[in-house]
């Protein structure tokens, strides 16, 4: 996309703001037009900064209701959900606010930047379309906060991830290396067959004459110096003599593509000292030229020259499309302390948009993130895990705006609140385009630049409460290494819902201890091996009915809890792990038999309709890992390709028993049948590469059990 949006609009937008009586928080809004200048100034600010606060606005959070965060999410499932969200939704605004302590002013100086970003397909290299998902409620939410979608889509800064850049560069390299003679050959063979009809032959003859005339004139001109001009004035527009790479050449204009092909053919067949070239000229439109060459080596030189130039052009355009990623590269290379608020999803977005595809497991993700961003602090964790700060927060919610207004009232209210400064507070000044201000109106919440600013202020204030004295802090020392902060660095909420925290530098997971008293635990301790997921049951059954139904079979204490994933699926947590396989076995046999006994069975109510499926927690994980997102869980399971109704599980102590059973089975039964069905199980699993070998063994085992039971 070479065409730029006229700057006048932007100018109008800015100028209108001058005259309007509305004033707002001083934010540097960055779009396509002012990106380059903003980037260079941001570079200095980041280099000088003590920490950089960030915030992202996305087009959505969950691609389906059942992908929401639940207390029943194991950490790996939680990661899969975050991964799904980061892969599907787009980032449309990116707030970056570098904070620097100014010892003279005894205050922080920050430069809040609000980047509008929108990934456009600027390179014609990748065939796949660029697309993203929008969650309607999120879009509506953004609209409520007056988000400027026009600024984003019309003028947002585009970007390429590192992976996309590598791919594009590789592609360029291979095309310019590949385009050796073989592609020419293949062209020729097919072209030759075209010269059958009379008009084509006549046209080719005419072109041949004209070219030799031009060539003749050229040679005469050089040798004799006579002033004879090429005589085809009638076609001057079509044949324009130019100089191409210091060589005389004809630029071909106004021919159809078929005619150009014929000309190309004529040149190759009849003129050894002419070369046909197709070069991308200015304005990205391609230009067809016939160049005079002195010798074969001259031709080679010319070709190389052209090819190199084109390659450089292509590489330049790739470099030019990196766009917003320069900001991320800057943050990464400067190794500054990154501050976010509940930012695990933000980090996942940054990874998938600007580095490459998200790894399949949380462990790999964490270790790579740690390489790119060695120091991250999450203010939400900071506020919840430190008792001093909890006290300061007066047990209020730790949402960003709440934390901001509780911890930094003097900043939140601007200058009007100087009398409030009874508590020791960190001063923050905002500088945008070399204009400093220390009083302002409150900005718009959920605008990334302002949210980043708030996050930074909350962090600065929290540090001061923790006893970090910025006056003592030397500017060369990295804030992340401060011993009062050390225990908080690189901790992120994997899931805020169940307070699971992951340490990015060690990969350890811990459950939140301090905050647990604040958060009411509705659910008993969750043991994933005791959980069965059931879906596709009759829609009128509610959690209570399902619990009652299962309790009838296994007794009133057998079911710990029943939790709705969505209206089509529930988690059932049993009191003991072995009940999972018992339940699935029973359900499996009820599925198969349709005799009166199974119809009267207490579970029959649950199985009514014949679409009820059940499986262990692992299947839930497998379904979460799919890239498909159907709104209802039952539809999702179908879309993932689940065709069975019950997936049995094996407890580890039984495996050996079945090992022998399997051998017997293999001997007794028709081997081809066994082979085929075995393949099936493998295929079910092989759809999902993240699935471990272990689990596919489990499934095979379970299959054999099922078969054994059928006998």
């Amino acid at each position, binding site marked *: 996309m070479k065409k730029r949006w006229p700057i006048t609009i932007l100018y109008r937008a800015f100028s209108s703001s001058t005259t309007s009586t509305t004033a707002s928080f001083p934010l540097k809004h960055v779009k396509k037009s002012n990106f380059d200048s903003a980037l260079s100034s941001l570079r200095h600010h980041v280099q000088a900064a003590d920490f950089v606060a960030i915030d992202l606005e996305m087009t959505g959070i969950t691609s389906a*209701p059942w992908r929401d965060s639940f207390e029943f999410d194991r950490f790996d499932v939680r990661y899969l959900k975050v991964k799904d969200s980061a892969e599907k939704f787009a980032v449309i605004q990116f707030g970056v606010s570098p904070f620097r302590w100014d010892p003279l002013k005894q205050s922080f100086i920050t430069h809040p930047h609000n980047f509008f970003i929108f990934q456009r397909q600027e390179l014609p290299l990748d065939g796949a379309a660029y697309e993203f998902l929008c969650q309607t409620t999120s879009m509506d939410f*953004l609209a409520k906060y007056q988000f400027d979608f*026009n600024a984003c889509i019309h003028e947002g800064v585009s970007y390429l991830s590192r992976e996309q850049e590598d791919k594009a560069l590789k592609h360029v390299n291979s095309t310019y290396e590949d385009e050796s003679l073989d592609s020419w050959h293949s062209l020729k063979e097919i072209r030759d067959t075209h010269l059958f009809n009379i008009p084509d032959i006549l046209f080719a003859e005419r072109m041949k004459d004209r070219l030799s005339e031009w060539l003749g004139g050229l040679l005469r001109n050089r040798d004799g110096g006579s002033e004879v001009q090429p005589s085809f004035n009638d076609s001057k527009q079509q044949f324009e003599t130019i100089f191409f790479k210091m060589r005389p050449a004809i630029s071909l204009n106004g021919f159809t593509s078929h005619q150009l092909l014929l000309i190309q053919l004529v040149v190759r067949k009849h003129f050894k000292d002419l070369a046909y070239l197709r070069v991308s000229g200015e304005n990205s439109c391609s230009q067809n030229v016939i160049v005079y060459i002195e010798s074969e080596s001259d031709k080679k030189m010319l070709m190389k020259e052209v090819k190199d130039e084109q390659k450089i052009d292509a590489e330049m355009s790739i470099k030019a499309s990196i766009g917003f990623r320069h900001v991320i590269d800057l943050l990464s290379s400067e190794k500054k302390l990154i501050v976010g608020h509940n930012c695990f999803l933000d980090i996942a977005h940054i990874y998938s948009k600007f580095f490459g595809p998200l790894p399949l497991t949380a462990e790999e993700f964490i270790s790579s993130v740690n390489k790119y961003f060695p120091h991250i602090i999450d203010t939400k964790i900071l506020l919840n895990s430190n008792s001093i700060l909890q006290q300061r927060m007066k047990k209020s919610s730790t949402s960003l705006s709440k934390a901001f207004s509780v911890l930094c009232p003097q900043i939140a209210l601007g200058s009007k609140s100087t009398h409030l400064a009874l508590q020791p507070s960190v001063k923050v000044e905002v500088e945008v385009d070399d204009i400093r201000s220390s009083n302002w109106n409150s900005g718009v919440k959920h605008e990334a630049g302002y949210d980043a600013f708030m996050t930074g202020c909350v962090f600065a204030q929290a540090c001061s409460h923790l006893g970090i004295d910025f006056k003592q802090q030397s500017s060369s020392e990295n804030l992340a290494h401060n011993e009062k902060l050390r225990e908080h660095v690189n901790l992120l909420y994997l899931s805020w819902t169940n307070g699971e925290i992951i340490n990015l530098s060690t990969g350890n997971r811990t459950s939140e201890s301090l905050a647990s008293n604040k958060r009411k635990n509705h659910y008993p301790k969750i043991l994933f091996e005791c959980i069965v997921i059931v879906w596709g049951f009759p829609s009128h059954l509610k959690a209570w009915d399902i619990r009652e139904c299962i309790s009838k079979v296994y007794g009133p204490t057998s079911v710990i809890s029943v939790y709705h994933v969505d209206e089509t699926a529930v988690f059932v947590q049993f009191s003991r792990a072995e009940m999972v396989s018992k339940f699935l076995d029973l359900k499996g046999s009820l599925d198969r038999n349709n005799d009166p006994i199974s119809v009267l069975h207490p579970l029959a109510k649950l199985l009514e309709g014949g679409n009820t499926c059940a499986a262990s927690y692992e299947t839930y994980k497998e379904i979460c890992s799919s890239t498909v997102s159907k709104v209802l869980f039952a539809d999702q399971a179908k879309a993932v390709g689940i065709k069975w109704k019950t997936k049995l599980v094996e407890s580890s102590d039984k495996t050996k028993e079945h090992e022998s059973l399997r051998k017997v089975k293999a001997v007794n039964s028709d081997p081809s049948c066994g082979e085929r069905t075995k393949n099936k199980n493998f295929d079910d699993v092989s759809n999902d590469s993240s699935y471990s070998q272990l689990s596919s063994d489990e499934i095979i085992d379970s299959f054999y059990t099922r078969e054994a039971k059928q006998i």
Partner: protein
Amino acid sequence: MVPQFKPSPLRIRFFCTKTVQQNHHHRWPIKQITKTNFNESLSEIKNHISSSDFIAVSLQNTGSFSSPWHCVSTFDTPDTAYLKAKFAAERFQILQFAICPFKLQASKVIAYPYNFHLFPRDELKMGMPSYSFTCQTSYLTAMAKEGFDFNTCIYDGISYLSEAQESAAKVRMGNPMAVDHATKSSSSPALSVADTVFIERVRSRVKHWKNACTDSDIKTEAALVTSLRKIVLGGEQFGSRPSMTIDVCSERQVQLVLKMLEDFSDVLVPLIIPAKGGGTQAVRAVLTSSDEDKDLLKRELQTFEFEQNKRVRGFREVIDLISASQKPLVAHNSLNDFTFIHSKFLAPLPPNMNEFICSLRLAYPQVIDVNYLLKDIGPVKKMTNISATIAYLKNRFFAPIEMEIPNQANENEGKIHGHNVVKICQLFGKLCSILKITPDAIESSDDFLASAINRYTNIFYSLPGSSQEPTNEEIRGWTNDKRKVSCEDVVFLWGFRERISAGILKNMLQGSHEVFAEAFNVRMVDRSCAIVVFGKPGLSNTFKNVMNSKAVSGPLREMVSDGLKAAGYETYQRVCSSGLWESALADALDKTLASHNCLSEAAYETKQSEIYLSNELINLAEL
């Protein structure tokens, strides 16, 4: 550049940019409709629809296909084409819906174009009309270039619910419904003892409550006593009137309660509170002070329901108007547009083309695709662009069409979108005049029109309108190839090196096996997969068999060892029907083969062959 701001309490983002005004689009006044002027425009639209001959429709969506092979192409059968269109309709969103009721008079088209800005806002907080939708950046960028105002669309777009969603929403909202006479069962059910006990208990409760409410003495009581009484008696307020909720366990009890409440019909109005999962949750009796008050309440309920329905349906009001008018609809890419319309405004899309057409016909009996009319004119090169088609016709035929658009000038100047719909009208007018479906005939006899138009009606898939031009010059030879090709002669090939051209692939195949000694053609479907069309029937099977046998030898063996794979058309059909929309067709084919192997092969195979034997021939003439 940013000046220092004076403080002000307003919190509006003033950087919101205005979209560019594009002068060359000012030709036709097309009325732009958003949430703000929707209601006031409805009656006008209704008039234009009822007085029109045809209604042209045109949609602006957020995308069409994600990978090259997802695009409906010439090698698709109607069913695979439908599945592709369905996949797109389910994922992408309509942002603009242009309709244009028009009349044909001699060589004049009188058109009343409207362009509706839509946004699927979740007005009821129920995840409807759509939880999420996909956007293709190229589509959004293209819209941006035309000066589309996304802020207007998202802030002020009209929402909607499909028919199916509306009925689901009504149940879930649980709004009280007035009892109409149909729900009152006329026959008095035989009463059991339990019934009698139930009725009497409820009757006494109602009586107590009614007396308590009407007794004037009580009004002097202290507030505490009043509220206590309320709790004891189960009284509530319904609007400004006192009401009482009677819980019921079955539909029979509903009938019993309603019957019993008839005894109080002078002052009590029964309302039914629906349960979330369907059925009835409770009956609510509302106390009115007089007969006039009772009528007032009934009217209030009616208007409430009416307003709510209107709010819920949103843009579907227009869709319903069009449907109710039963006027023939004119579209440019009907398969694409009507899969979208069906999925957004009627109900989820059925699994196959036939059911889709049946279902659609109930709402829209006549749909005319201008692309199909075009085909009758002669060997027109496929044109995706309406303007190009109009220009083409202009050069070839003398059929001047005068466009008259009597709409009043648009108030929101500079944001005129939806020109395509007018172009469709113009094109349709031209085509009618060229094809001698003359406007005179239309006026003189409706029957003639019907028969003339019927030839072109409801053909959703003949040759798809949106196929890409072949990207490789090498397959030019196909242009002269006018014969139709049976699906049976088509083999999908994949597993070769990426970015190979069809020509090179053909060369490679030519010497590899004797089946390629006969005439055959190769075309790339996407970067990962190609189709081979055999000229001689039966060769495709030979080839597939060779590929799967151990006897494969020579250069072909070399290619197979390098990963070359082949599958027949039925595998491709299975890819489309199983919804394996991988970004590369090769991956989708591989996955389908993998999951196919696990099923008992025999059963599936015979079923499949029947389907594809009955397949229509596909025309590869215009590749």
